[in-house]
């Protein structure tokens, strides 16, 4: 399963499904991470985690652990 964690900075990906535990799942979806959403990975934080992405014209940060629960095409 390819997840958002595997996407490198500068690359785009389209969300296939959001897994993860209740609160992470809900939070991600509330922020617009739903099936079909296009995400652009911007960069990784200086200490290696979290990552910054762009979706629906705004900047979002999330931990790699949370990115792992986003399955992408």
């Amino acid at each position, binding site marked *: 399963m390819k997840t958002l964690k595997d996407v490198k900075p500068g690359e785009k990906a389209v969300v296939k499904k959001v897994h993860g535990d*209740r609160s992470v799942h809900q*939070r991600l979806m509330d922020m617009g991470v*739903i099936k079909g959403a296009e995400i652009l990975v911007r960069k990784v*934080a*200086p200490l290696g985690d979290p990552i910054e992405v762009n979706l*629906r014209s705004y900047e979002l*940060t999330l931990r790699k652990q949370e990115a792992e629960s986003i399955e992408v095409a």
Partner: protein
Amino acid sequence: MAFHYALVGNPNSGKTTLFNELTGSSQHVGNWPGVTVEKKEGKLKGNKEIVIQDLPGIYSLSPYTLEEVVARDYLLSAEPDAIINIVDASNLERNLYLTTQLMELKKPMIVALNMMDIVAKNGDKISVEKLSKKLGVQVVEMSAVRGKGAKEMAEALKALAAKAKTTVTDVTFSDHVEKAVQDIAALTNLSRFESVKCFERDEKVLKQLSDNQKSQIETIVKACEEAEDDDAKSIITQERYGFVAKISDGVLTKNTSHQMTLSDKIDRVVTNRFLALPIFVAVMALVYYISISTIGGMMTDWVNDVLFGEIIPPAVEGFLTNAGVADWLSSLVLDGIIGGVGAVLGFLPQMLTLFILLAILEDCGYMARIAFILDRLFRKLGLSGKSFIPMMVGTGCGVPGIMASRTIENEKDRRMTVMLTTFIPCSAKLPIIALIAGALFDSAWWVGASAYFIGMGAIIVSGIILKKTKLFAGDPAPFVMELPIYHLPLPKNVLLQTYERGKAFVKKAGTIIFVSSIVIWFLQGFNWSFEMVDANDSILASIGNIFAPIFAPLGFGNWQSTVASVTGLVAKENVVSTMGILYGFEEVAEDGLEIWGNFASMFTSVSAYSFLVFNLLCAPCFAAIGAIRNEMASGRWTWIAIGYQCGFAYLVAFIVYQLGSVFVGDASFGIMTVLAIVVLAAGIYMLVRKNPYSEQR
């Protein structure tokens, strides 16, 4: 009868600016009952009958974060008559997601379409009329930051209040899902909003239904989940976004040429892999420098030393002597009351300066970047990247440090930060370090340095241990966070927020500080027959004698240490000055130079170090305790914090003394040593054990 508006919107949508514009200085800030979430309400400028309740910035009405729960509970309560939904036009779709949920509440609503200036700058276009028609509510175009639209907004609010009617469009879903929700509504007779919540298996709503209804609902939902091959919540979320897409189609025209915004350009530098940390250090150094070292520090010193040192006390003393006032009353006024008030006001300059700087950092958007950069470090401790600032500020003074934790959104993180911030030595503890270092360690440099390491160690260890306890365990809060666009902070917002927070501190914390200063003044200056005496013969001294044995296992079971530590609760510098008084010196140098000899004869190097550790880690001064009370918004949590700090300090000092004494040869291996080893082992166990509360998959 007042007309209540609930102001709802995403974080970073300009809500605060709008609220300030509409209510001016008639705001009232407090906390929602029992939680650390800030509660703000105010009256519409020039119209006392319209009350606006500012709700926490939220992305959704799902009951996961505390802010969402607070907002949702308020919206569902009887109080709000209408809703003001502020929408960030430059982020239309994500903002409309919340709007669809608000629409389901079927209350009269006005939409403030904010940040239209950014939309224009980006080259995008939004048809306000079409949006208004599709939503079924009035949409007021705004650019709050530029002051545009505020007047029209106020007019719209007044108009709706005069004739409140609900014209909100129905939010409909696609076939299967729509039918399922309608079936649930028919079955339970609940409102549309609650029916959808039932579909999402929302526990709070389901609670009120019968088991029969619940199982019927479950059947309906399961059928839908199979048909869509997805879970209920995801289905609803996708449906909502589908509805949002239908709205924005034809309303929003995006400029297709992608240009890097100014924000992106700034972030290229600020969160750059190599530059981020140095820039961060520089910014923090600047904040510290201005608030503690220079402006803030200077003003606080002036208030303490000049205003309450040279101006007020002599003047009042002169007045009292001339008036022939009794000794005890004179002392009460001068030492007790003025001392107490001075303690409260003394902190204000530093605190206000710091608040202004933090408000600027928060408003401009840099604070979110700090959390982003530091998250990896702090998350292991159950803290947030934003926990750094309270602790850094705490090295100057714990009071503004604790107050600075208000910027941390997650309640558990915030509580933990408040609890642990005072482990770092504040500047008032430096005299204690100097006394011990000078009297027993020949002023060796490493004594001071070790104090900071012990403080940091205490924070790290406590963070890890506490994370595994029932109080702080639980689903780790998702870090998913928006990085808002940078913008210049509005002076009005900054000043208003600073004023409100300063006021809250003076009221809440001020009371505790004031009362406790007077209590200590009394205990220290009187004996059991209520005669004025020297500290040596006071009630406090006799209490000290009673409690001294408790500290024997820590190496300082003498009453002087107990008394000094207690007076340290008023101000940490008092530990040194009280010691001085107890040894017969009315005044001593800041580091207690005069009593080094006496001190050395009463302590061994190990027991002195143990005394140092205890005073460094135990409960902070009353001002800080007051700040803790203010931030925790709960008496229970305040006691938990103080109890933990004292307990932790006691055990660590115990271990230090017992094992230290054996190590340097002062004492031989004995029962106490064994006990200390047991405590240490227990501590290590709590540190390394597996988290019993981590997610069961």
